């Protein structure tokens, strides 16, 4: 997968660390479709989870260290608090790394991993598959063109009754299992990426946070101010696992606004001069699972495509971290 890999080396030997719900419902079903990947080993602290996924992917089970030694690409799909340590270990073992979202739980860890990967000559990505939604890229281009003027505010809403059959009680017991790092990593990234705020210098000041319970919270509403290039941008992030919300991203500019649904389908709505103008991208993805599968295909066939490179997620983690720690 790295630029020094030989084209005739065959499929990339891959390992998967973490065999919970995401692994069982997404990786086990869709990764076998990727011709450039060959799963050689999976690992999980619960042997039954590892065996279930290993059976589905026709590979061996082992410890994380054994998996890193057997593979050249490591996928980290464990709970967020363990991402940084496992990614460090994988990079040190000579693997390229793909980390499930959220990248890490702290911006310091995120920056350290990016630096470690660079020094080791390895690649590190974040599996934030919604970046493959065509409308998100289109939104980024529209806003980046300056058509709406400078960005003034970014509002992000995502909520619905939780129905993901988790394999553990992680969402209730893990301090980082709340909706903020879980769903929020997706929603926040869509807003930042669309507004061009995912990279570059960014300061975060949290104004207020309202939660339904102490972390892990299942509903959270945060207001914050992002400072970049000498200007302030208002941010609002409202997430819920219990009830429906608008499920959209709305970027307000000096001369209008752009909004889009957080799902894979549909397009954008531009509002300017008092008129609402729907805009549709030229292509679509069939589903979220399609985007999930596509991201791995692109990571294997075009490793130099940096849209999922980990350095593009440090700002996201900075905001999540600031909101999380705000009382």
């Amino acid at each position, binding site marked *: 997968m790295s630029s020094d890999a030989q084209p005739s080396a065959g499929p990339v030997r891959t390992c998967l660390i973490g065999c919970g719900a995401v692994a069982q419902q997404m990786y086990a079903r869709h990764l076998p479709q990727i011709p450039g990947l060959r799963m050689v080993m999976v690992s999980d602290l619960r042997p039954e989870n590892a065996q279930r996924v290993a059976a589905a992917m026709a590979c061996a089970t082992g410890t994380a260290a054994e998996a890193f030694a057997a593979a050249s690409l490591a996928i980290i799909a464990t709970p967020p608090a363990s991402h940084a340590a496992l990614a460090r270990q994988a990079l040190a073992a000579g693997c390229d790394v793909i980390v499930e979202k959220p990248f890490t739980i702290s911006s310091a860890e995120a920056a350290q991993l990016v630096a470690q990967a660079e020094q080791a000559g390895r690649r590190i990505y974040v599996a934030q598959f919604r970046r493959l939604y065509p409308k998100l890229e289109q939104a980024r281009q529209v806003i980046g063109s300056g058509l709406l003027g400078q960005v003034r505010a970014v509002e992000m*809403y995502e909520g619905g009754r939780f*129905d993901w059959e988790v394999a553990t009680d992680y969402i209730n017991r893990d301090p980082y299992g709340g909706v903020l790092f879980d769903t929020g990593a997706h929603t926040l990234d869509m807003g930042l990426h669309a507004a061009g705020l995912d990279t570059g210098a960014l300061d975060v000041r949290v104004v207020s946070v309202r939660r339904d319970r102490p972390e892990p919270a299942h509903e959270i509403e945060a207001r914050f101010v992002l400072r970049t290039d000498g200007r302030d941008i208002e941010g609002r992030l409202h997430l819920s696992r*219990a009830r429906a*919300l608008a499920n959209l991203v709305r970027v307000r500019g000096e001369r209008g606004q752009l909004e889009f649904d957080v799902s894979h389908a549909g397009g954008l709505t531009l509002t300017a001069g008092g008129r*609402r103008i729907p805009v549709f991208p030229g292509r679509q993805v069939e589903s979220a699972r399609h985007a999930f599968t596509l991201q791995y295909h692109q990571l294997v066939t075009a490793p130099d495509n940096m849209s999922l490179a980990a350095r593009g997620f440090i700002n996201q983690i900075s905001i999540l971290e600031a909101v999380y720690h705000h009382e």
Partner: protein
Amino acid sequence: MSDRQPIGEIAVLGAAGYVGQRLCADLRDHGLAVTGVCRPYAAFLLERLGIPSLDPAAAGQARRFPVVINLAYPTRGAGYTRRRQNREIMQLVDRLVEPGGHVIHVSSLAVFGFALDAPVVAGPVALRADNEYCMSKIAMEHALLGNRHIGRLQVVRLGNVWGPACPNWTVGLIERLRAGKPVGVRGRPGWSNATDVGNVCSYLRHLLLPGTDAGMRFHHLAEFGDTPWSRFVDRLATDLNLPAGEALAPPAPAGGRLAEFRAALRGLRPAGFIRGVMDARHLGADARAVLSRLPAGLVSGLKKLKGPQVFPLEEPLGPDDADFLRVIGCQQRFASVTDAGWRLEVTLEQSFERVGEWMREAGYV
């Protein structure tokens, strides 16, 4: 509430759903002991409301309940698995309710079809071939009718449930408006047959009052049923500042099996197959070799057999769109049949205000 006889503890199946969560909170707020039955991964939805939860796998092992309210229905898996899922839910009801206990089964107006094609009666409905959701609802009612352990059974058929964050009708209508999809049928205003979730909770709570007789009774709840859908749509469209598009014609009425078979065959698209062959590298070469040897008149005659190209004059509708428009254009009323002692808790205007408040909080406006 009556003080003649304590109601006892209530088990609510499907407690983690939209109506279930609100019902559990409502019963608790009125001083009733309630336990929500739901799958473990959804238990947190009840815990955050302070409602104790019970894993279905553990149901019946520790205790039984004098009252069971069933909101559960099959929601996952392919349509042909619904019968098995129904059976599992009925077995769960059996394990939970005390012998001779009280069961309130929450059903739907869908037992009469999406467009209320079958005659609406406040009584048992005959099994018939229909959409999988409708059939599942009918089958569930039948399973309960045949249950000899239940002392008192009440079947409450709800109209189209509406309310803040309601996934089917409220969110569904909002999303259709935002997507520019039709939310009505031109010249065919339909009856909403709607019920507000607050009134659903109120009525179910009312039915917990001890009855004077055992046995069953059918209830229909659609207190806003005589309000056309257009009123709901116009209110949402105004709040969202969006136009309300209409389909030019209603979806074609359901035909018989032969019509359905013909429609399914159209999906095979021979034209697409032929085009695929002609465009292919090797098969196309073979096909061109054959056609080039045929008399020009014969080839021309074969092409004429296709007939002139016919374009669809209406925007094509997917199955979900068609079912939606059947409901939104429903010409039949689903009149409420409710206990005379119950009083409406949420008026239509209050319902609209609550939805509007939620829309602002949820980020729609």
